[in-house]
């Protein structure tokens, strides 16, 4: 979503094989010889892979999101995948789910599925997987057991019992990778298990691993194998240097890459206009988070003033080259979640710059513009914006914000530490203002809950990742509770509308522009990529979107 720093973790690959054999010559296809593509069977899919550190470390443990290789998502299927665009479900190991009441969720498990070693897959494997997460909290990266109290199987059904109503949590349960009981039950420490011989139910199995590239082969036992087009999937590791990765993408080495490219039309599309295409949908919202435990940010009028003082179009232009548009301040990502948007809100909830309205709001908060300075009870209004120095789009946005707020008399300074320190400061609540990300799960409830639920708002100095701006509003909590408990679309829409209105009027977070999701595709070998006309999921190749996309591809 952001630009990675130039020397971030990562490693090697790609065109080298072709290059050094000839000593020169171009290298458009980077199958690198190891895959042996047979065109009749479907051919090879090359995906810009994981970042090597500087080389890849073999790890196909699906419960270690920070170190596992992305291919793991094609090896271990979940119950269902959930679109990060709009929250729609694609069934895999389950055929469907139902809430018998807001605290009881029943998944119907698919019949006739086998593990890649030939053993039959059963609902008992699902129960085992979830109990494994309970036994080893280190594996429970999505906090499943903070929401559920029990899991049991009967017939083809697996029933999850919730501690409290949380209908949207079905998505998290759906996307938990399911592992085979007959293998994982005997693993001593699953948290550090590298799982170099993964056995899963997904459409692919591990074929070969080398420190700079790994290859997956189609799983002949996959339940829907006839629908799977690529016979092999190659993941060449990314370079340590982000700009090298961009050069490789530009060279056209991948069928699917995920990277920000400057001037994408010239640097990518025009290099092979017949097949190269990009799709940069919004994948989240970037906002200015004000510390709500501090004055004057705890004053809603002051926050409205800031929101009205900003020109979001300019900010978006500076930050991401105009790839992204100004964000709706409702918290709804447009156009992805259009169906959730409350039509009664003016201008789809996008706030436009209005200096006199901003000054009026500041006056209501007790601040007036005198001699170019916004003066309040304690002198000129000041703001220090904290952001990680490696996120250059955020930095560009922050620079523009400081210019624009300077025009309404607020003295803004920027604090740009490394990410780890940024996260420490924001989590502890000792920041003044910070640039941060909002949403991106595809499910409005999750986005709102993580950002606004006061149950996360720990006291200052007690770290919290979520709701670090420390918003506390009984009405919001109530609406969240309603949304979590309602199973009918109408009730869900009603609660969401309420939250959108709250976001729009109360400005707990000054949402600015959408963060991009940088999908780059080639239709040379395969078609069926997500696009603006068929936006079935975000073009991210490092989560279950990978499984959703690869299973939908068709040979070109």
């Amino acid at each position, binding site marked *: 979503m*952001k630009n*990675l720093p130039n*020397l971030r973790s990562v*490693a*090697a*690959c790609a*065109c*080298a*094989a072709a*290059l*050094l054999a000839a000593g020169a010559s171009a*290298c458009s296809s980077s199958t690198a010889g190891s895959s042996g593509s047979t065109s009749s069977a479907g051919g090879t899919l090359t995906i810009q892979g994981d970042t*090597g*550190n*500087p080389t890849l470390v073999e*790890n196909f443990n699906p419960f*270690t*999101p*920070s*170190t596992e290789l992305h291919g793991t998502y094609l090896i271990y299927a979940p119950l269902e995948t959930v679109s990060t665009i709009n929250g729609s479900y694609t069934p895999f190991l389950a055929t469907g789910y139902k809430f018998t009441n807001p605290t009881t969720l029943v998944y119907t498990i698919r019949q006739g599925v086998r593990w890649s070693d030939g053993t039959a897959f059963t609902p008992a494997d699902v129960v085992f997987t979830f109990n494994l997460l309970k036994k080893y*909290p*280190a594996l429970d*990266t999505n*906090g499943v057991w903070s929401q559920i109290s029990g899991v049991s199987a009967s017939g083809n059904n697996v029933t999850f019992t919730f501690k409290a109503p949380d209908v949207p949590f079905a998505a998290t349960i759906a996307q938990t990778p399911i592992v085979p009981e007959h293998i994982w039950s005997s693993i001593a420490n699953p*948290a*550090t*298990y*590298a799982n170099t011989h993964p056995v899963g139910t997904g459409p692919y199995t591990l074929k*070969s691993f*080398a*420190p*700079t590239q790994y290859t997956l082969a189609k799983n002949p036992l996959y339940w829907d194998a006839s629908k799977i087009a690529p016979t092999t999937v*190659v993941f*060449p*590791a990314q*370079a*340590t240097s982000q700009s090298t990765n961009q*050069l*490789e993408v530009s*060279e056209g080495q991948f069928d699917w890459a995920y990277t920000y490219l400057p001037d994408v039309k010239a640097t990518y599309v025009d290099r092979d206009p017949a097949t190269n295409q990009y799709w940069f949908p919004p994948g*989240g919202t970037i906002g200015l988070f004000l510390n709500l435990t501090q004055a004057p940010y705890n004053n809603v009028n002051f926050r409205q003033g800031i929101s009205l003082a900003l020109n979001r179009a300019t900010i978006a232009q500076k930050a991401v080259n105009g790839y992204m548009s100004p964000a709706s301040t409702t918290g709804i990502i447009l156009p992805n979640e259009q169906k959730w948007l409350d039509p009664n809100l003016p201008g789809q909830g996008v706030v436009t710059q209005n200096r006199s309205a901003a000054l009026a709001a500041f006056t209501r908060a007790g601040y007036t513009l005198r001699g170019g300075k916004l003066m309040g009870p304690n002198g000129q209004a000041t703001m220090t914006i904290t952001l*990680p120095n490696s996120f250059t789009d955020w930095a560009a946005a922050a620079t523009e914000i400081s210019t624009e707020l300077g025009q309404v008399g607020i003295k803004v300074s920027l604090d740009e*530490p*490394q*990410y*780890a*320190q940024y*996260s*420490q400061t924001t*989590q502890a609540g000792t920041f003044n203002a910070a640039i941060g*990300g909002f*949403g*991106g*799960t595809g499910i409005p409830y999750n986005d709102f809950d*993580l950002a606004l639920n006061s149950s996360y708002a720990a006291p200052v100095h007690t770290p*919290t*990742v*979520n709701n670090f701006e420390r918003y506390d509003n009984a009405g919001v909590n109530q609406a969240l509770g309603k949304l979590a408990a309602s199973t009918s679309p109408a009730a869900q829409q009603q609660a969401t509308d309420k939250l959108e209105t709250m976001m729009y009027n109360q400005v707990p977070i000054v949402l600015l522009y959408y*963060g991009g*999701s940088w999908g780059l595709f080639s239709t040379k070998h395969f078609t069926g990529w997500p696009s603006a006309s068929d936006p079935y999921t975000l073009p991210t190749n490092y989560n279950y979107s990978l499984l959703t996309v690869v299973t939908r591809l068709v040979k070109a």
Partner: protein
Amino acid sequence: MRYILRKVTLFIITLWAAITLNFILPRLMPGSPVDAALGKLASAGVPITNAEKAAVEAQLGAPHTSIFVQYADYLRNIATLRFGTSFSFPNQTVAETIGKALPWTVALVGTTTVFAFVVGTLLGVYAGWHRGKFGDSSVTVGATFFGAFPPFWLGLLLLYWLSFKYGWFPIKGGYSPGVTPNWSLSFLGDALDHSVLPGLTLAITTLSGWVFGMRNNMINTLGEDYVTFAEANGLRSRTVALLYAARNALLPNVTSFGLMLGAVVGGSVLVEGIYSYPGVGNLLYLAVTNHDYPLMQALLLVFTLSMLVAIFVVDLLYVRLDPRVRSTS
């Protein structure tokens, strides 16, 4: 003998101090390994939750023991050459991780340094012998110019033009993708091909040190009585240059070998980053960004130890090579 004993004692004390510093320094950095790991996910656009943080904390086994216990563990680990598990590579020991990366850097930096030393020294001899003439000026000005190239800048330019534009060299890595390192001839050729540009970058930017050192030494040595005496005795000037002056002028250049190593290692951090070379320089940058204490400590130890040993060996060699040192100490 007293000289050697003194050197050994000093070596051990310096080693201990360096080891302790290596322990303290990484811990001064703000933010925790957990924050850094989450940052990596965040920069990929993954929404971070408290649950995720708790799980990552549990996975990393983030240190909760007191700093003194950690220090004691650290010393014990060094003594037994076990450095624990790195946060970045939870499935490998730190020793394994470094073991995989170190040969690449040693080969790259070693070859480059020897190459730069030989070429630089020869150029220095040439410049010193032709002092004040055109040849001297071109060598010194050229070396000054190239020596001032920031390694990362030269690396970027070479990478762009020779790899991306013209495709003469691979664009990244130490070897081709999909290949597992082995000792076959084809692999070695492949690796060599990948090391040309990073090696060239390092060599060009470190050459000047050797040139200047050697040139100055040559000029000084050429003024010595015995050289003048040799010339007066009618020895051919080439013989004088190589046999007398250069041989004696070489000595100080050898001593700076140890210190040069530090500069090359520093340069290799940046150059390995640009070329995505699978060496320890790259690894160090990773360790720093990930707040990976175990890995960072072990790497700093490797760096300081190699410099200490180089200096120590040179010191000892010096005693053999230059009898004057023995008497003055």
